């Protein structure tokens, strides 16, 4: 009973505040919903159980803001809710990071088409690292087997499964290229996808409405849609997560490669670059003239896919 009365007081305070200030409708809805959920959960029979807690957490999650507009406190709160929900729903202990970009860092990627031999280690590492849906076999990276002399990936074989490498062929990896002038960002009607200051194009999965305009806008086939509720076996879940990276997604939202934001903002290489057995993948800071990616740009013959579109991708293919 004590709890109810404190909530009543909170509702009273809230109504006072709303009435004393011409606040936004959204703010009102959000707060009212939060309190209603708290009250509703308490009114449920057998309240205080995990079911009631889960309902309340999900309700609060539903009414949170866009990540870019969240205060430090709001970010910490949503992280706590997400970690608790992962425990309640899936029984896994995850750590969701909100580490911001590093200063003076702009990420860039190099892909050596002379070295790649199509072993696909990058693809399976990516699936594991990013908790990609195992049911629909979602993959961020696609490797195309191309005939020598061919430069159009549309004519390459993106579903090969035989011993590699095959004589007279080369292999070309395609994923999100994190364009500086990304058409997907411009197409999004809800501002659920944007370019982070370190150049990573990210998606706020809780702000995406699943319209798939971004997918239509992307000329590189970089985005994936969750047609079903994504599922990852409990013991295969990567627990070190990032809010803008490999945390749990739901049915009906778009996702894509984030340069493994949960790894790269900890100073690590993306999972694909780390897993590559041939050293075909180079990753680093474009703003650092001593970085490996800058060596590649300066010394190797590089090209970008569909450069004429002006999307300005930060992903260069190169040859030895």
């Amino acid at each position: 009973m004590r709890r109810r009365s404190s909530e009543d007081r909170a509702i009273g305070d809230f109504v006072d505040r709303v009435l004393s200030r011409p606040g936004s409708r959204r703010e009102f809805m959000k707060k009212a919903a939060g309190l209603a959920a708290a009250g509703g959960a308490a009114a449920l029979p057998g309240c205080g159980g995990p079911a009631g807690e889960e309902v309340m957490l999900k309700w609060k999650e539903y009414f949170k803001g866009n990540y870019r507009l969240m205060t430090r406190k709001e970010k910490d709160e949503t992280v706590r809710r997400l970690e608790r929900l992962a425990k309640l729903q899936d029984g896994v202990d995850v750590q969701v990071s909100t580490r911001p970009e590093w200063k003076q860092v702009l990420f860039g990627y190099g892909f050596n088409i002379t070295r790649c031999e199509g072993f696909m280690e990058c693809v399976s590492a990516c699936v594991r690292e990013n908790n990609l849906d195992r049911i629909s076999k979602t993959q961020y990276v696609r490797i195309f087997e191309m005939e020598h002399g061919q430069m159009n990936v549309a004519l390459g074989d993106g579903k090969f499964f035989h011993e590699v490498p095959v004589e007279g062929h080369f292999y070309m990896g395609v994923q999100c290229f994190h364009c500086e002038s990304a058409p997907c960002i411009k197409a999004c009607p809800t501002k659920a996808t944007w370019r982070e200051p370190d150049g990573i194009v990210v998606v706020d999965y809780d702000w995406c409405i699943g319209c798939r305009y971004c997918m239509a806008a992307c000329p590189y086939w970089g985005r994936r849609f969750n047609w079903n509720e994504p599922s990852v076996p409990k013991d295969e879940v990567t627990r070190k997560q990032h809010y803008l990276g490999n945390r749990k997604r739901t049915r009906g939202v778009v996702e894509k490669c984030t340069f493994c934001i949960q790894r790269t903002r900890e100073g690590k290489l993306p999972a694909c670059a780390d897993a590559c057995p041939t050293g075909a993948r180079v990753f680093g800071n474009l703003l650092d003239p001593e970085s490996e990616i800058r060596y590649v740009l300066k010394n190797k013959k590089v090209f970008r896919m569909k450069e004429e579109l002006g999307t300005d991708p930060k992903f260069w293919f190169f040859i030895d």
Partner: protein
Amino acid sequence: MKRLALSVTLCAVALTCGCRPEAGHESGVGAVIREAAEPVDSAEAAAVVQMDLPAAVLSEVQGPGGRFRVAARKGEMERFRCSGCHKGKTVGISGAAGTAHDDIALRHGEDQGRLGCATCHHEKERDFLVGADEEKIDFDHSYQLCGTCHFRQQKDWAGGAHGKRVTYWAGTRIVKNCTSCHNPHSPRFARRWPATFSPPLDEVR
């Protein structure tokens, strides 16, 4: 005098016209990269990145980005140290067959005429490799030996276009040794089945 003024003007016009498309081309990430000329000393890298430096030796090759570290090899080698068996007395091939090195298939430099053991291994100082001038080369620094033939690859490796960096893109640069990835006796990667496969494009909507 007039003609001189005209030609000067024409030259100036030609120069500015010649520059303009160039300047227009240098927009976006290209311009950003060109302007970033100073090495980045990231405070985050120092604070966040924790590396196991003893597992790597300091390279004796100067890279374009300064000195870097190379993954040590001796701890990874199954049968080091060699002088455990090879101590002064000759080991006949028939005597060693089936015991020590019969897993070695030498497929290295075949188009140049096959290499022998002593092309790379020091005949007297058994725990070392041998350089072009009969000098000893430590197994941890085997890249120095590889670079005597594969100097082009060594240049790219020192710069970062060949080979692999270990775990971190930030902090101290540690790269793998040549022999971390390539079997020196058979350096080309073996043909094999891929780790996974991708569903056909028309099944992914």
